[in-house]
């Protein structure tokens, strides 16, 4: 009954410091403001749950920002409110994002007590010079210490975020990083190739950065799946790798077009084929989080939008999309909507078709925009 399932995203916009590559909504913040924010968040959760009685929540994701920066007790408070107001499924995946050096035993215990069963750690690199360049507050030692704590605490589902294509990074360094992380016994690795986004510090100083050549960056990407595979990881999405059955359920939801409700400052939601995001104005949010008028950029998706999103999100997955699912979901054949585009790409080898599924062959994933743009 996918139709009656929903996902929950909770945005924690606080960071001790902004990283050089980050274009997410986040800023530093003291305890009092945190308290105010969590209160507003809970108001929003309460108010929205009233309109969403029919849905069961299959995953919750506390993202940021740095959710692990929240003072003791606040995560529990948020999760209590979620349990109180939503029908969270017993096997729901509940994730919190954390940065090294913001965790201690007490916080980890609080998370586990709150029902959180997955933790995602923003490691990015194990090279101290690169960490510094990225503007991260931790060093590799800090990361390994944190990892020890996390493992000891009893978390079994652990994700590590890594970045490739960093300034001064070599192919050999990247491969080594992958091995080091894989050997830590984690269940999931997200490996992102650095994208310089507008509005970040890196964007301003891009010319000064000694970024590796495109061919090197491409080799970093192309080598990742093979290396991680040796440790049992399966490449399942453009930038995501997991041990069998440890794919991120929550994130899969985004790529499979599952409904999601985003709570908090700037958080995005997708409800009833409509996408919107909350205000990014902190004071407005604090004062009016219960009110629908904090919603911005409300976009009702047309049939064509939905077809197109099915493809551009679904094709991010290594297994691609299913022709049957398309038909079941939209009551029209994939062939009749995208037949020509698909044939063109299948003919030139940039899409593959197998057992009713259509997917991007591994070697073209890193240039997938060229293919996805044809489905807009």
């Amino acid at each position, binding site marked *: 009954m996918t139709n009656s399932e929903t996902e929950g995203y909770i945005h924690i916009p606080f960071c001790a410091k902004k990283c050089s590559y980050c274009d997410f909504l986040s800023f530093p913040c003291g305890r009092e403001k945190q308290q105010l924010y969590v209160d507003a968040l809970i108001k929003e959760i309460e108010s929205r749950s009233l309109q969403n009685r029919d849905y069961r929540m299959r995953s919750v994701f506390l993202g940021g920002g740095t959710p692990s920066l929240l003072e003791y007790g606040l995560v529990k408070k948020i999760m209590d409110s979620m349990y109180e107001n939503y029908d969270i499924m017993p096997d729901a995946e509940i994730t919190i994002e954390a940065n090294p050096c913001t965790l201690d035993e007490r916080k980890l215990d609080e998370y586990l007590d709150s029902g959180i069963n997955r933790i995602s750690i923003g490691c990015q690199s194990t090279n101290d010079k690169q960490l510094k360049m990225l503007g991260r507050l931790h060093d590799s030692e800090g990361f390994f210490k944190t990892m020890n704590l996390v493992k000891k605490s009893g978390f079994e589902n652990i994700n590590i975020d890594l970045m490739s294509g960093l300034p001064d990074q070599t192919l050999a360094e990247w491969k080594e990083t992958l091995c080091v992380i894989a050997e830590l016994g984690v269940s999931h690795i997200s490996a992102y190739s*650095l994208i310089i986004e507008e509005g970040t510090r890196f964007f301003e100083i891009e010319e000064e950065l000694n970024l590796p050549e495109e061919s090197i960056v491409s080799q970093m990407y192309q080598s990742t799946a093979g290396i991680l595979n040796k440790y049992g990881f399966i490449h399942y999405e453009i930038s995501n790798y997991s041990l069998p059955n440890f794919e991120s359920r929550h994130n899969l939801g985004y790529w499979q077009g599952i409904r999601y409700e985003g709570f908090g400052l700037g958080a995005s939601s997708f409800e009833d084929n409509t996408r919107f995001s909350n205000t990014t104005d902190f004071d407005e949010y604090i004062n009016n989080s219960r009110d629908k008028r904090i919603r911005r950029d409300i976009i009702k998706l047309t049939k064509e939008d939905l077809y197109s999103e099915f493809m551009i999100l679904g094709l991010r997955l290594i297994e691609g999309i299913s022709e049957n699912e398309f038909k079941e979901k939209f009551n029209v054949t994939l062939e009749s909507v995208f037949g020509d585009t698909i044939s063109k790409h299948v003919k030139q080898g940039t899409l593959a078709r197998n057992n009713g599924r259509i997917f991007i062959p591994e070697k073209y994933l890193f240039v997938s925009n*060229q293919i996805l*743009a044809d489905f*807009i």
Partner: protein
Amino acid sequence: MTALKRREIHLNPTPLFCIIMRIIKAKVLYLEEKILSTFDKSHIRNFCIIAHIDHGKSTLADRIIEMTGLLTQREMQDQILDNMDLERERGITIKAQAVRTVYKAKNGEEYILNMIDTPGHVDFNYEVSRSLAACDGAILVVDAAQGIEAQTLGNLYLALDHDLEVFPVINKIDLPSAEPERVINEIEDVIGIEAQDAPQISAKTGLNVDQVLEAIVEKIPAPSGDENSPLQALIFDSVYDSYKGVIVSCRVMNGKVRKGTKIKMMATGAVEEVVEVGYFGAGQMIPCDELSAGMVGYITASIKNVSLTSVGDTITDNDRPCDKPLPGYKKVNPMVYCGLYPADGAHYQDLRDALEKLKLNDASLFYEPETSVALGFGFRCGFLGLLHLEIIQERLEREYNLDLITTAPSVIYKVHKTDGTVFDLTNPTNLPDPSQIDYMEEPIVKAEIMVTTDFIGPIMQLCQERRGQYLGTEYIEQTRAVLKYILPLNEIIYDFFDALKSRSKGYASFDYELEGYQRSSLVKLDILVNKEEVDALSFIVFEGSAYDRGRRMCEKLKEEIPRQLFEIPIQAAIGSKIIARETVRALRKDVLAKCYGGDITRKKKLLEKQKEGKKRMRSIGNVEIPQKAFLSVLKLDES
């Protein structure tokens, strides 16, 4: 008041006329009284202004209109004669037009001044010659700093060919670099006309423009001609108006024409009944009772197409025709052809409609449907020259909102086949198999390049590279000379002018006229993208330049074609022989590394943008080629 009322009945409420009413209601009355009463031929002056580009022709025209009181300064928009937006932006005059003003001279008498504007570009030389034929005299404007330039001479010779009385005016004397004395001497030495008492003016500020007005009255002869003879009127312009039909600008040489006259266009044979005659205010039409010998004005006769009223044709009275037409008429033929295609194939019909509408107003525009493997359905279009091409292209894009792909402009080659037949080749793809070709000819021009002596070397080198045949050098003064060359038209239509400017640091000026055809070794150069021939990129080239052109073409295409999923070879070939190759390397990274719930809208926009970019490209096999690649390869950089 009665006159005004009558006028209102005459007028259709077109936007054009709303403007007339608004701007010069009062003046209409004033002017009309003048015409109806006192004027005879001796008080008419028909003249034009000739000048090198940027020497201030249009500014002087503005000032004359302003100072004769047709418009007040407040109503005056700069360069009122150039009423197409495009003309104004480019600062050049494309179509001839005429303005009538009334000037009260220092002798106390009032004169009608008919100022006929002439196009300022060699593409429109024939129209210039017809405008000149409508005049009795010409003002030669020379820039006080720059002196005589190539077009000064070109236009002057044209004017003298038409027996016009020419007097010089030295313009821009307010510039710090002005050297009026030097320029006066230059005019006397080079042109051989008296220039000591030439008005020294600043058209910009209006300084001494009154002297120009007096000189018009004194030096330009009144029109001759017999108003009792059969009608003979010269068409020097015609424009299409959706309410009135074709509006013909003409100079009446003999006889008279009025409403109801059955007129005959002698070259095209068209016969129509005159609906209205009148004259031009500043950009507006003012009807009157009749036009008689010596007058300049317009005629409307519900004519639906400008091709019936060719510039240069003679209008006569169908019931009382003249013996023979005025001399000098010729049918204007296109000199340059190219393919025009809608960027989006779905807009083919829109392009057809737009061309049809432009054609109503531009008899020299030619088009016929053609098909390209690369570009789909489009039109092969003929133009007077590259400027004409660019103007049409811009008007299509701007006024008709069309997104176009233009293929390589081509001159008309004469192909002599082995079976003894000859045909005009306007599209390179129609070149027959080499085994069927006996030989080919290409059009050549006689060019005059005026240049300061410092740059003679580089310019001669340029002309040599462009296969020029040197005819000679004439020194105008110690530091300036005119170089004379025969050049293949093909060598000058793309980028010759730019090259000339860059090699002379902007000091060279250039004028040319078509000379005829000459036999030449020509080959068809094909471009293959990903091993597929792109017909729209083929062109005819001199055999000796083929290797170099092919190489530069490939290099340029390599820059223009974005990297794609595959490696793309770009090759230039003559027949089956590859003469150059470049490779567009495969794209290695183009990915949205992260795409979660909050990213979707934004990331989708990125893909949409990418899609938009793709829309502006044409697929040739697997390869997408941007539209601009089709034209930019023609503007190959120097060396």
